[in-house]
């Protein structure tokens, strides 16, 4: 089954082609799109099962042995992220079918959607840095187009910021790749993990590590590089914003986790202390930004930033428990944040606005919507028995064990302020009386396509909360794999772990 890893790339690509070939037949586009998303979920589920039973999987494309060929690798972390990608891809697509304008669907929405999934899946599977770069660009260019599709004023305004900053991030990434290649003579992740410690140039390696930190930090929206995110994420259609909010920044977090566990671990005292400081400032600045906002989508956008801080904190503490917490947090956050954006979209459909002061009375009028909001909102704030409680608990406990009391204090404070923000949305949109001049839109059967995915995702949050053990076990195993990279290296380079010599570089 060595070709199994190609499936999560092939399915979205073929779906995009099929959608494009469907021309103007919208029903056919939608059918292909749905089938493709369902197939992707199935394929990613299979990848996880195989990785879980048989260990790390890898595919050498074109049968060139590593480190010369293009390598696809799936360890437990990649496989878990892939499954989450598949689930979100399907859920958000169902929501998009009921909410995205027909003009946008005809303008190529479905093809772009699947190409975006392709880019994200590729980033999770990439076994060398240059391919990681290529997959980042695939997801970046499709996210550019999806962000400004429709060409509204707000979209152009946010899109300009998003495009320019992300271009700069990509160039940082590319330069870092060039310098690392100049240092080590290879870009294969496993090969680099062998060669970097043998290089005996910790200063140079740490310099390159900082370039990677900036590049992935912009993608992941950490302090002080996050300003593009709240400027852009509230502008596209809700389905697109939900997918971006859930998945895209987490690709940056995934890349950070990957390089700072596999490659740059020689000067942990410097790099990971820096990460810890960044984590604390990210948590605080995100949550404080959210307190000042009054638009549902802007509040949620700032909360993405603050939650990224918790994940980076898990990485920065660099203990098995902390990494477990970071991975648990990533999965929990993708589900919860996507749900919240989707609920915000339904509230907009019913209440007619994203602005809090124009909303109200939704609890009395639509109690089911209030429940659907409350589950992910309280989960985001970290209240038991929801998934966010366990995610925060693990991170805080890891912080206490590592005696990082400052970071723990910041994390607790950020958690409380998250609750304040969620209470603000609850009070304004659901609890306060409806402004008299704003009638509610009726609930129609056509809204079932919006509500069904939200119900499913809220149920997932609840299930993770009430029965956290399977995800903890998965996260624990991936944390172990990340901290002992020998298994990863042996899986890619062969049992001896010593690669054949690459082309000699004259100095």
């Amino acid at each position, binding site marked *: 089954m060595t070709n199994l890893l190609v499936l999560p790339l092939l399915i979205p690509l073929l779906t995009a082609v099929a959608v494009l070939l469907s021309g103007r037949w919208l029903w056919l586009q939608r059918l292909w799109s749905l089938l493709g998303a369902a197939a992707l979920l199935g394929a990613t589920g299979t990848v996880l099962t195989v990785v879980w039973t048989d260990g790390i999987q890898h595919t050498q494309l074109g049968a060139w042995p590593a480190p010369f060929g293009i390598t696809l690798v799936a360890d437990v972390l990649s496989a878990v992220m892939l499954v989450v990608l598949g689930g979100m891809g399907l859920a958000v697509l169902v929501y998009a079918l009921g909410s995205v304008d027909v003009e946008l669907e005809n303008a190529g929405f479905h093809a772009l959607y699947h190409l975006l999934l392709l880019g994200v899946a590729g980033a999770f599977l990439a076994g060398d840095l240059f391919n990681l770069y290529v997959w980042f660009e695939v997801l970046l260019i499709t996210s550019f187009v999806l962000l400004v599709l429709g060409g509204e*004023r707000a979209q*152009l305004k946010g899109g*300009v910021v998003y495009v320019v900053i992300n271009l700069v991030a990509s160039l940082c990434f*590319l330069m870092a790749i060039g310098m690392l*290649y*100049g240092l080590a003579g290879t870009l294969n992740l496993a090969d680099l993990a062998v060669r970097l410690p043998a290089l005996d140039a910790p200063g140079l390696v740490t310099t390159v590590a900082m370039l990677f930190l900036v590049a992935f930090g912009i993608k992941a929206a950490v302090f002080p590089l996050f300003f593009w995110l709240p400027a852009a994420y509230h502008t596209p259609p809700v389905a697109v914003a939900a997918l971006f909010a859930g998945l895209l920044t987490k690709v940056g977090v995934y890349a950070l986790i990957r390089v700072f566990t596999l490659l740059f671990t020689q000067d942990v005292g410097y790099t990971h202390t820096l990460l810890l400081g960044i984590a604390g400032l990210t948590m605080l600045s995100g949550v404080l930004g959210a307190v000042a906002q009054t638009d549902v989508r802007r509040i949620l956008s700032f909360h993405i930033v603050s939650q990224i801080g918790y994940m980076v904190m898990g990485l920065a503490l660099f203990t098995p428990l902390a990494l477990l917490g970071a991975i648990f947090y990533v999965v929990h956050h993708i589900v919860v944040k996507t749900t919240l954006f989707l609920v915000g979209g339904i509230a907009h459909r019913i209440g007619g606005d994203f602005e809090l002061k124009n909303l109200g009375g939704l609890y009395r009028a639509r109690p089911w919507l209030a429940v659907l909001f409350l589950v992910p909102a309280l989960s985001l704030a970290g209240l038991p028995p929801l998934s966010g409680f366990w995610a925060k608990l693990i991170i805080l406990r890891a912080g206490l064990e590592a005696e990082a009391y400052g970071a723990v204090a910041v994390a607790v404070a950020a958690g409380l302020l998250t609750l304040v923000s969620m209470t603000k949305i609850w009070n304004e949109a659901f609890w306060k009386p409806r402004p008299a001049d704003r009638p509610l839109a009726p609930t129609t059967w056509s809204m079932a396509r919006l509500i069904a995915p939200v119900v499913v995702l809220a149920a997932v949050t609840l299930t993770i909360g009430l029965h956290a053990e399977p995800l903890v076990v998965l996260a624990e195993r991936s944390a172990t794999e990340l901290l002992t990279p020998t298994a990863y290296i042996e899986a890619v380079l062969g049992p001896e772990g010593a690669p054949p010599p690459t082309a*000699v570089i004259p100095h």
Partner: protein
Amino acid sequence: MDVLLALLAGVLAAAGTYLLLWRSLLRMLFGVILLSNAANLVLLVAGRTMRAAPPIVPEGMAAPAAAVANPLPQALVLTAIVIGFGLVAFAFVLAYRTYTTFGTLDPDALAAAPEALPATDADRGPNGRPAPPS
């Protein structure tokens, strides 16, 4: 040669950064182009330039006979050039659309511009109040 190319990459990166700091979207995009060329040069220099035979394996042999040039950086740079071209082309179209919509390319003026146009009579609510800016 390597030193010269490295210095050139540094100059390009510095000029690109300088242009990025301008308060004009067009100049910022020119800066991005220079930066991307700097990054491409870095990739090329990273593989070391040298006078060597082309990396072709003679027929009937498993490896080239003598030292050959490193082909990998060229493959990487070609890929990076194509990707960079696509991204920059998109960015310019976006800048053009932004200019036709907002009439300015100054980021500060863009940030101050309202996200929604003032409501016309047709958009007004039932009580005649305009929709509030979001």
